[in-house]
């Protein structure tokens, strides 16, 4: 395989992994606070259509990303009201949010189905981009790719080096202790959940504004769920989220490359398209085989409602 193919596979892998990183890191923060939001698929779908529509109307992809962020945050806020204030079941409410988001985005998106956005150019970092093979994939990328790395660094710093991050983790581990030493558990959970939604919205907007760039009903096609699985696979550690996301990006890209090439494979395209979903199942099996890894790393109060009895 020559260097240019390798370079373009790497390039595509990083692009495909980026929305997963953004969404999964957002979910990670929400889950660290103890909130399990299964609505990522719906929030991404809303982010995707909001981002697409605003970009189309204003011509600015950045306003589009902001709109996607706002749409995702709004959906997460709705979810937070139901599960944090009204103490609804988190699993069921997350499902409801997914169904609502996918339906609402299809509804809003109908008039946009025939539109196409202009491609957004990459940002080239001088000198570094000239490195053979890895130069272009790493240093001649969409701005959001760089931002996903910044997000990763910021989240690692926040969770493990900052005081608010410590409080967030404490809330996820033991909400009653955090409450008894005076931290506003519910407010912190609201913020973490909304942050998760905002990131899901950005991930959705990345798909519709930068990646495809068009809107098709159901275009998120399970990425929200894969992002949730990624957090489990990463045992709630940001670095592993990055690794996992690129791994999945690689699987998604590999199937596209095989489909697009004439390597002599004669596999129906549907089989190849199923690979990311099957890969998700396989990694979930691998990680959950050893229950202790999951149990030791999962935030203790994940998914459980908490209400300070004041």
């Amino acid at each position, binding site marked *: 395989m020559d260097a240019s193919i390798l370079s373009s596979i790497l390039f595509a892998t990083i692009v495909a992994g980026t929305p997963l990183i953004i969404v999964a890191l957002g979910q990670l923060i929400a889950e660290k606070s103890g909130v399990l939001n299964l609505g990522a698929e719906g929030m991404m779908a809303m982010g995707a259509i909001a981002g697409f529509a605003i970009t189309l109307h204003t011509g600015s992809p950045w306003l589009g990303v902001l709109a996607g962020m706002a749409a995702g945050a709004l959906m997460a806020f709705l979810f937070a009201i139901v599960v944090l204030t009204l103490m609804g079941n988190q*699993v069921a409410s997350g499902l409801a949010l997914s169904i*609502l988001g*996918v339906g609402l985005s299809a509804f809003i998106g109908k008039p946009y189905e025939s539109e196409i956005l202009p491609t957004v150019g990459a940002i080239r970092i001088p000198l570094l981009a000239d490195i053979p093979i890895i130069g272009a994939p790493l240093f001649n990328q969409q701005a959001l790719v760089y931002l996903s790395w910044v997000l990763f660094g910021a989240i690692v710093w926040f969770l493990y080096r900052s005081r608010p991050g410590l409080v967030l983790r404490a809330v996820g581990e033991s909400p009653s202790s955090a409450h008894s030493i005076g931290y506003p558990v519910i407010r912190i959970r609201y913020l973490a959940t909304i942050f998760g939604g905002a990131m899901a919205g950005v991930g959705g907007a990345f798909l519709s504004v930068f990646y495809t760039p068009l809107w098709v009903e159901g275009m998120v096609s399970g990425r929200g769920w894969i992002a949730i699985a990624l957090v489990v696979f990463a045992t709630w550690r940001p670095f592993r989220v990055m690794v996992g996301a690129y791994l999945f990006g690689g699987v998604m890209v590999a199937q596209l490359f095989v489909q697009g090439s004439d390597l002599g494979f004669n596999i129906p395209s549907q089989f190849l*398209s199923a690979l990311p979903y099957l890969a998700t199942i396989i990694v*979930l099996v691998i990680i959950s085989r050893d229950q202790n890894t999951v149990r030791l790393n999962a935030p203790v109060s994940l998914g459980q409602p908490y209400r300070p009895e004041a």
Partner: protein
Amino acid sequence: MIRLERRPEASQVMSYASPLIAIVLMLIGGLLLFAFLGKNPLEGFKVFFINPISDWYGVSELFLKATPLMLIAVGLAVGFRANVWNIGAEGQLIVGGIAASAVALYFHEAEGAHVLILMVIAGGIGGMLWAAIPAFLKTRFNTNEILVSLMLVYVAQLLVSWLVHGPMMDPDGFNFPQSRMFEDSALLPLLSDENRLNLAFVFALGALLAGYIFMFRSFAGFQMQVAGYAKDAARYAGFSAKRMIWIGLLSGGAMAGFAGMSEVAGPMGQLTEHVSSNYGFAAIIVAFVARLNPVGIFFASLLMALLYLGGEQAQQYMNLPSSISNVFQGMLLMFLLGSDVLINYRVCWKEARA
């Protein structure tokens, strides 16, 4: 200031009133949505909720649409009661539809009742096989059944897409991605000549009854209920958690598979990529709105079917995308989960503390 105060015990009244509150909130949300879209809300209401059932044919269509929802929801409810979260019914329905179609195509031009009987069995087994994957992975490796069953929905959609583009494509179908039309012997008998309602509706009613007996009159049903309320108590009593996971997932899978059969052998009459119109997900909402109770499932299925038909009407007469049905469905479930707070809490107006 509005405050929530914990009730000394859960309110029975509210557990039945909360779905009604959610329905009312959904209707209000719908009126606002129509108004927001610049449509006359009252006309929208009429087109959406009244027109579909303004004659007997419409009512029969309502029952026809509700049939797969009843079947799937009652199967899912069995598992949900024990906190076994099978959310992949959509995929199980598709695989059931595929299996039933395979039988129908194999017995192409055969006469006799055995074709339909084998189709029912194949549909049920197909759905169960698809649900057995998350059940096996959950019991053997403790893998999260929500994510696995959901991933398998996408796999099933790709599987049916491959089949109707390849091995099961109609040889005389001008390359349309669909199977050949089934013969009469592979179609469920209609209940009357006037409409499309078929035998599957009777089966669905039977399934509701069977579900009721299992849930409220059988020991296994009781065990699953206990496990749902208090996992530790169930374990202490020696109830097998693995057995419940299997029962929970397989019952949902079997019913979803049968629902898939009832679609291909009913209103569709062939296998296409669109075996399901999101019935697998809508049935989850049905199960919740019905409080996992078979009697409730009957009515909630009718409501959900009305949302489907209303969406079709809105598309036809108001120029709105039919996905408006999904918006209503999602709203309904969100409102329900929100208003469920009233079961354990009461709202009181208190002066804010100075």
